[in-house]
């Protein structure tokens, strides 16, 4: 588009953060990294579902195969793994709820001419995000206690 005759000759160095940017992109406060977490938990859950279905497939082998699998899966390592999956789910579900609301423009407030120093809607409504995180922490704790006892 730009008419510079020589711009096709691409001598410019690409400089995208790429997937690196999920891990560390700079001094952002919260939502930028919640995005990463949402994505990781989403992918984690998808992976888990696949494994879960494979494990369930042993049902086809009848009661013994099933019981064996369940026994195999009851060792502490898998228990921890299971807890992580539940934790991922709780985070993904609650954060997902927030995202659905906010993607559709709810809870963000109305546009209004900004007054310096500028605060954008996400930060103005950060209490909502923090409340979501608090509920999440409580749930995680509850499930942890439930599992341990």
């Amino acid at each position, binding site marked *: 588009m*730009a008419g*510079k005759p*020589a711009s096709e000759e691409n001598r410019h160095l690409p400089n995208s953060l790429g997937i690196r940017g999920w891990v560390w992109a700079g001094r952002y406060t919260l939502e930028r990294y919640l995005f990463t977490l949402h994505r990781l938990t989403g992918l984690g859950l998808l992976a888990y579902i696949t494994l879960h279905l494979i494990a369930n497939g042993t049902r086809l082998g009848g009661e013994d195969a099933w019981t064996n699998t369940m026994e195999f899966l009851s060792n502490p390592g898998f228990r921890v793994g299971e807890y992580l999956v539940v934790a991922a789910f709780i985070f993904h579900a609650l954060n997902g709820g927030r995202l659905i609301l906010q993607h559709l423009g709810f809870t963000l407030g109305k546009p209004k001419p900004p007054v310096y120093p500028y605060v954008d809607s996400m930060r103005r409504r950060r209490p909502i995000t923090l409340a979501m995180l608090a509920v999440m922490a409580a749930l995680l704790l509850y499930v942890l206690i439930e599992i341990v006892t």
Partner: protein
Amino acid sequence: MEAVHDVVILGSGLAGLRAAVEAARVSNDELDIAIVSRVQLVRSHSVCAEGGTAAVMQPEEGDSLELHAWDTVRGSDFLADQDVVKRFVEESPKEILQLEHWGIPWSRRHDGRINQRPFGGHSFDRATFAEDKTGFFEMHTLYDTLQKFARVTRYDECYVTSILVDNGVFQGITAWALTSGEFFLIKGKALVIAAGGACRMFAFTTYSLSATGDGMAMAYRAGLPLKDMEFVQFHPTGLVPSGILITEGARGEGGYLINNKGERFMEKYAPSKMETAPRDIVSRSEMTEILEGRGFSRPDGLDYVHLDLRHLGADRINERLPLIREVAIKLASIDPIEKPIPIRPAAHYCMGGIRTDIDGATPVEGIWAGGEVACVSLHGANRLGANSTAECLVWGKIIGEKAARYAMARGSVAPTPPQRIQEEERRLFGWIGHGNGKEDVFLIRAELQRLMDKNVSIYRNGPDLEAALKKVRELKQRVEHVRVVDTSRIYNTNLVAVLETINLIDLAETIVLGALARTESRGAHSRTDFPDRDDVNWTRHTLAYYSPEGPRLEYSSVNISMWQPVERKY
């Protein structure tokens, strides 16, 4: 390398963008239009304009075209061409509406109609504004509108180095694409010059760093005369120490100017208009206060007075003046809601420029000029606030249309002898070999700026100007020997600084010479050795023609078709 277009537009400020949109529009997107700018199109200096754009929008409430014309003529200290003023006041309301229809967020009154605010030298509140970012919103509205047109080629960040004229007819421009390093010729049937002003030759200025008068200097060297260059406007409220502008709107909204005794000193100088007197008068008043010891002093010599907005209250400041509040907090650590702002007069606008007729046509066939780079003689010896953005819009439209119609009527583009381009390329990149030159371009520029600030500022006199002329000529010699350490062709801002400095020095010479010759005080040109206006000898325009030895001055008459000069008092 060579590129051919129908209409070439040099500069993408308000005037350039308006011309580009108009050219594309009148030709129904049929003409091939190029827009060339040394910055990315939308970064042009015009984004800095803050206060407003003057137009008669409320004739029902007492304003009239005649009144706007009278204000402009009187503000110009009777050096404006009055036929030009007439055209201007008739056209500018149309531009306000046009921008409104293209989406600009003009500030509104409660009834939903376009609001206007008072401005210096205007007898009616007729500065149409969009908060205090008028130029910014105008630029972005025009830039956005330009995106509609398919056949506009943009040359972002192409530094134009010369305008080629052959036998009194336009041929092309040579340009250096900063991002790729390419040097090439852009040919066209018509050229629109809208390359902005030249106040970067002053150190304390409201200007963007990129507004260095290249357009004027190139046109001047191509043989086009520069008109009325000695008239440089100083804006009363430049933020100390950077020079960044605090809009006249701040006074329009009711801000006070206060000296170190706590007095509203404008009472003494313009009792009827107070802070909203024309800029030349307010600037002189401030300087007088400072010179007579009623300013606040600073170790670096940038003594100042106070602009006090506190009585306006937080709401009004946040609603009407958000940008200057932001700027004052960021760059001077002062919140105008709580403290007065330190300000002093700053170089702000070139009334002079490339001579054009009332249609924006220059003496060279195929070249039009508009905006601050041109001198159509609307502002005379002193521009009224808010008249410049309006001028950019009005003449941007006129020259865009004229250039497009000319290009549509004209057959082919004349060939350009290749050696002229090679010569120019050698001149340009020849500097790059100069690694061991003995002069430092940044020092030379700083010397020029200090000189202009000191000797060619608000108050001028014969001996100071003589000394300035000598010094400018010395700098002109010395700049030939600068070193360019950077050897790359890509984004070599070291070389850019050299080209800019050469341009500024050439223009400084025309200013100093014109000021020296003009033995009177008129508008922004105020000589302590000739304190009065001399209507008999000096109601005429200065023209500066290029010659290798230095500018040759000629004079032309002023169009007086409405009011004879009378004493100017506020």
